[in-house]
């Protein structure tokens, strides 16, 4: 589904090179996890894929269903089916969650040449999907993420994902700042979206999220490269021994 080939990325403003040749092939129906120490480039990978400013791709491609998404604007990538659940969702006062989501859903539909969703359909769908994530009507009416707790913000990200129905979902450290109960709720939301036609890339420091969202493939990233790939057992190994062993083994 998403094929990342030899991706090299540096910061736009200086010569700092962050990604040094990342290769990943994310298949439909599969959950891939990327683990790695701080500064290994995990979050940068998610930003570059979703089109954030400030990075320069010096080499490589990222093909989503036959399109190199690195050539697209962020909104075009979203319409093409890419979604990033942010590590730090942004607070936007004065715009209700509901208004925002409806704008986003319909903007994507319009971009794909589909019919826009009317407000009755939209309301019905959002209520149903919000329920799974324990999001009440009041939270939908509130301004985007304003005054939300860490758990509410992350659940809100998953709600957006559920409403936008992307084919390629990237979760950037969705577990950060969450207690166990909040994490379970988020994981439940994510698992409900697992589907043979959808691929997931879960970025995390810790194995604990992967107890709840079970990955098919685990990659270890270090210094801008994937240094090791394996099954779920790789995550357990990291939890037990840390990254140092793997780095040493690869070096």
């Amino acid at each position, binding site marked *: 589904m998403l094929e990342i080939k030899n991706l090299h990325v540096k910061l736009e403003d200086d010569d700092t090179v962050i990604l040094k040749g990342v290769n990943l092939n994310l298949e439909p129906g599969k959950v891939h996890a990327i683990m790695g120490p701080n500064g290994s480039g995990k979050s940068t990978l998610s930003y570059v894929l979703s089109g954030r400013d400030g990075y320069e791709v010096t080499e490589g491609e990222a093909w989503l269903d036959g399109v190199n998404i690195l050539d697209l604007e962020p909104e075009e990538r979203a319409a093409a089916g890419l979604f990033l659940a*942010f590590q730090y*969702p942004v607070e936007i006062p004065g715009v209700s969650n509901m208004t*925002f989501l409806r704008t986003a859903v319909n903007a994507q539909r319009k971009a794909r040449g589909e019919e826009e969703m009317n407000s009755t359909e939209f309301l019905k769908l959002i209520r149903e999907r919000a329920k799974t994530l324990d999001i009440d009507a009041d939270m939908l009416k509130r301004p985007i993420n304003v005054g939300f707790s860490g758990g509410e913000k992350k659940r809100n990200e998953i709600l957006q994902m559920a409403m936008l129905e992307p084919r390629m979902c990237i979760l950037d450290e969705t577990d950060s700042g969450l207690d166990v109960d909040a994490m379970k709720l988020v994981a439940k939301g994510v698992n409900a979206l697992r589907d043979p036609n959808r691929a997931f890339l879960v970025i995390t420091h810790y194995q604990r999220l992967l107890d709840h969202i079970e990955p098919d493939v685990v990659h270890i990233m270090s210094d801008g490269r994937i240094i090791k790939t394996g099954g779920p057992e790789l995550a357990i190994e990291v939890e037990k021994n840390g990254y140092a062993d793997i780095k040493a083994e690869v070096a």
Partner: protein
Amino acid sequence: MALTQAKLDATEARLAAMDAPAQGAGWLAQARGGAVARLREMGLPGRRDEYWKFTRPDSLIAPEAPRAAVFEIDEAPMFDEFDRLKLVFVDGVFDPDSSDDPSLAGVEIERLSDVADTDIHWARDLYGVLEARGQSPVARPLAALNTGYAKDGFLIRVTGRAERPISLIYRHETDSSDAILHHVVRLEEGAELTLLENGPAAARFNKVLEVDIADGARFNHIRAQGRDHERRAATHIFARLGAESVFKSFTMSVNGVMTRNECVIELTGDDAVAHVAGAAMGDGDFHHDDTVFVTHDAERCESRQVFKKVLRNGAVGVFQGKILVKDGAQKTDGYQISQSLLLDDDSQFLAKPELEIYADDVACSHGSTTGAIDADTLYYLRSRGVPEAEATDLLVLSFLAQAVEEIEDEALREAITARLDAWLARRRG
């Protein structure tokens, strides 16, 4: 202080171009005569005046109004969905045929042009009186001109709780209209009124609203300034607040090449509350000036000024806001914020926040900021599939929301937001 020759000439040229309202011995004629005398003493504003440093008064004082095309738009009139008493003016003249019968339980409504010889004691004590009080310490000559020459407007006395809002609708139908309207509102003790105003009014509009709010009374004011592109307006609100009274005023402005909205508030009774807010969006040759002067002259009063402007393509926004706390106005709570969102490098925002405090136990704060769209926030919206132009407009609404939220009534708040949203959507095409 003697006026400069240039100022004298400009003032006399303007006065020569006016047709004076009927003279007489009645109270109204006297009030008008007094205003004209005041005006001659202070002269019309000039470009060198400190209070007009950021806004060129030329087009507002010229003997003839610059023309303004009538803007045709296929959109339901503002406030159309609200149950209200409609009073319609066309190019500054009351049009009874388009209006409701001006009667409302708990409210006395008199047309200014009908009262010349009638002794309406309450209006006699207010017409031009609050305006005259507001001439110090800063002169507001356009308001004196208004008092002297306004032929139309309403005198509204509220004795109870008005069951529905009074809605003043200002239609603009002639390219060259030059309208002067003067309204007076008196809220008796414990009375309540919501006043709505909307429409471009005229090619050039000079309006004064004097509001006297007795103890425990509440006055709500929501204004949507018409969006005719070339219109010009100089408006003044003079409000005097009694003890435990409440004054809340919100203005939305989109378009208009020249707008100067002055709001002069005097808190004269203890525990009174005055909030004034504005949300303005301008494009191109838009010039929008909010000038506010709040005087605290009683204890434990609260005043709040919240002004937001979104400017692009060379539009100019001005804010001059002052809080004056007089000796003895202890426990004053004064707040003022003015912010602009500049969507490009050509636009500018000029702000002059001022505090002058003579009491020692007060909490006053003021702030002013100028900024651009936040890149991270824009990226967040775009990453959800919202195209850049639409995402920017969502952030424009987000920015203005803090001012719009000053409107107490939820339905009115939503109506204003919907207008701002529609304006942005139309502009996007």
